[in-house]
């Protein structure tokens, strides 16, 4: 155990030398963790150590760490694999093989794309945790509190990469001037190359369809722009129904959402069936627009991030053989119908707003 350097985060960037890769590992410096009870210790220094190496391949770079580090980098505890934006746009395929092949890498580590360089992210100061990896890991684990970021594990990413039609996606991580790390938006890949981004709103549009939006806050837009209502999503179910009609490919997405009335800053009383129903309709409208926005972006990029291709594959295996290789020509012209059924269950501990009318 004392011969190991525990890697928590792996950052991959393009090296300055052409054709080489630069690897940044964030390891925990166990000599700096003071055992609890020994008193004192600490200070502002976080017990982490970033190591940087370049090499022709990822594996070569990793082995080079042994020139300077007395401890072998140990990967099973790594939490996140971050690709720099530049290398992501160039294609991650070359630099993901090692992580697929090596037994020390867990399949459930998260894959992310950095805005800018990955090494800059690793220099960021995560709040409350001392390693970037653990921080990112915990943020992604509780993605459903907002449902506006998408957790993608190495396993998910590889699955999408290996699929002929489904496009890989990965959450985007960025660091601001105060060195704070935030997750915002989603990187969309075409094959192994990043081609664009989804906004947080569009990301939730994607999550509705992927059946992963199990929480989050929907803010309703009322006619009066000063009045706002927040609905807390508590569950959602999605059904994708592919259909081939008149030689046209159609997709119907049926979303059933359940939520609670979480907050209202209007004096209106919703405790009657009619206005309650209007809330349902408004919520459904927001969900619909989110899904459509995401779909529009996806068609723009011509990247099937929803996995609609696989849905056709399952339902029409015979027809699929003809479409499969030509999916790029079908996807931009796919017709999407979104049906949303929203049910607001409870209004919390209050029935009416306390706001005076």
């Amino acid at each position: 155990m004392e011969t190991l350097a525990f890697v928590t985060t792996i950052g991959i960037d393009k090296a300055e030398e052409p054709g080489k890769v630069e690897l940044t590992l964030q390891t925990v410096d166990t000599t700096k963790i003071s055992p609890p009870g020994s008193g004192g210790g600490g200070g502002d220094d976080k017990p982490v150590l970033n190591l940087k190496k370049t090499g022709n391949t990822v594996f070569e770079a990793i082995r080079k760490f042994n020139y300077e580090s007395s401890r072998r980098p140990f990967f099973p505890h790594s939490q996140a694999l971050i690709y720099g934006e530049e290398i992501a746009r160039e294609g991650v395929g070359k630099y993901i093989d090692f992580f697929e092949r090596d037994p020390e890498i867990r399949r459930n580590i998260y894959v992310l794309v950095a805005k800018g360089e990955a090494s800059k992210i690793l220099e960021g100061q995560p709040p409350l945790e001392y390693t970037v990896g653990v921080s990112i890991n915990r943020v992604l684990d509780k993605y459903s509190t907002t449902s506006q970021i998408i957790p993608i594990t190495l396993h998910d990413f590889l699955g999408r990469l290996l699929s002929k039609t489904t496009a890989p996606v990965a959450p985007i991580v960025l660091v601001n001037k105060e060195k704070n790390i935030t997750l915002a938006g989603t990187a969309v890949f075409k094959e192994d190359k990043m081609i664009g981004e989804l906004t947080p709103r569009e990301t939730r549009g994607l999550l509705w369809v992927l059946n992963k939006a199990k929480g989050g806050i929907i803010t309703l837009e009322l006619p009066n722009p000063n009045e706002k209502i927040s609905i807390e999503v508590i569950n959602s179910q999605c059904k994708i129904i592919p259909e081939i009609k008149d030689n046209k490919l159609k997709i119907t997405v049926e979303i059933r959402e359940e939520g609670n009335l979480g907050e209202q800053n209007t004096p209106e009383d919703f405790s009657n069936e009619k206005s309650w129903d209007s809330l349902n309709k408004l919520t459904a409208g927001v969900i619909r627009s989110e899904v459509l926005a995401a779909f529009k972006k996806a068609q723009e990029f011509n990247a099937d991030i929803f996995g609609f291709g696989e849905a056709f594959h399952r339902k029409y295996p015979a027809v699929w053989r003809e479409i499969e290789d030509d999916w790029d020509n079908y996807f931009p012209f796919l017709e999407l119908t979104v049906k949303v059924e929203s049910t607001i269950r409870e209004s919390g501990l209050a029935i009416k707003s306390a706001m005076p009318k």
Partner: protein
Amino acid sequence: MFSFLAKKLKFLQLLKKNLSQDQEEQNKSPQLTANLKTNLQMIKNILGNSDDIIIRPFVLGTKDQQEAALIMIDGLIDKASVHDFIIKPLMLESRSLNDNDSLADSIEELTETLVCIAEVKKVKTLDELVNDCLKGDTALLVNGHPGALIINTRGWKSRGIEQPQTEVSVRGPREGFTETLRVNTALIRRKIRDPDLTFETMTIGKRSKTDVTIVYLKGVVRPGLVEEIKKRLKKINTDLILESGYIEQFIEDAPFSPFSTIGNTERPDTVAAKIMEGRAAILVDGTPMVLTVPLLFIESFQTMEDYYSRPYYASVVRLLRMLSFFISIMAPATYVALTTFHQELLPTPLALSMASAREGVPFPAFLEAFLLGLAFEILREAGIRLPQAVGTAISIVGALVIGEAAVSAGLVSAPLIIVVAITAISSFAVIPQSDASAFIRFILFLLASTLGIFGISVGLLGILIHLATLKSFGVPYLAPFAPLKPADLKDTLIRFPLWLMITRPSSITKKDPQREKWGLMPRPQDDNNKG
């Protein structure tokens, strides 16, 4: 080389010859004669000039003034009863008898008239006489009569019935066996007042001549068990039996196994319960530890208190004992395996905090664990043997030095202290297997420090296979799990309510299988249905 072996063999053969000669000599014991003087001389020749031997010649208070003598051993006899019920009637009260002839035509008649003690028998050989005297009996020889009367006057200072030291219970009887065989048999007899309860005694030990008693319940005991025990006991040809452990080591099924195949207990209630399940107990004079056979592995996790308290907590505690057995054999091995080979198996925060705790420890994990384990064993041994006052001092020093100083000096890591401590505590939770678990712990530890978790699995499998091969007096050690006896599972992992324990364990005995009636579940009548 071969000649050397041949010599050894010859020596062994000689030994055998000597032994058989001994046995022949024993069989040819001289008969007691009718002449008192000759008899006394022979006895003196055998018993020598020991101070504690009392030979009391006297004259029977009858007309013909027959000479007689009492032989007894000081300290083993109850002096009061010898004085009041033997010497006094024989010397004084005999005078009041109106008998013209010699008082006794045979000495048995004395028992009818003058010896006022319940247990009297007649012996004819010198050896019998000496043996019985050495047990505390008094021998009466009368001139002119061949043979002697052996009068039971045993009575010596012995420890009273106290609470057993090794098996304390919160709820349940507080009495424990003592060193005196007769007291122990009485304790069992008081629990089971059944005419079928049988005690069979034999003497083992050429020189110690220790009484060994087999106890069983006729009609319930496993068929063939008593014969098998007797067969094995008869084979013991040694000169000294001090404790039941001697017997155990001479008759056990698997002498090389770390697991004991013979149970021992200090509690009469435990013995009574085991006898009722078809087992037999072996009592040895001079020790409070009673052996019970056959022993199943599961018995190590049962205590009498499980049956005295209500089944819920009793079952939980039983599961807890099994858990602590596994902890006690596996904890150090797992620690070493995880820290040296399988760091990826620990949750990340735990891995990091353990890594930081091991920072600066100068020994590899396995040496660290070995040294600390060794220190604990030394501490335990020292603590047990020392007088209580000093023992406390030792444990304070041990706790301070090992627990506090070793960690702050950076010689061992704090997590290991926890591991060793929990191992120690766990091993005390299953006392019957604590010997075995110490041995297995070490084996698994060695396997883990060379082969990691693979080694632990190999070790555990090996132990399981070994356990499955063991038998205790014909009963598979792992019964009722292997071979599976579903009906017997009522008293294994979970202790069923007493009213559901209908049958005796079938892996032990199939005789008189039903020990209680069906439908004994208490069902108090509803108040509404009354009247």
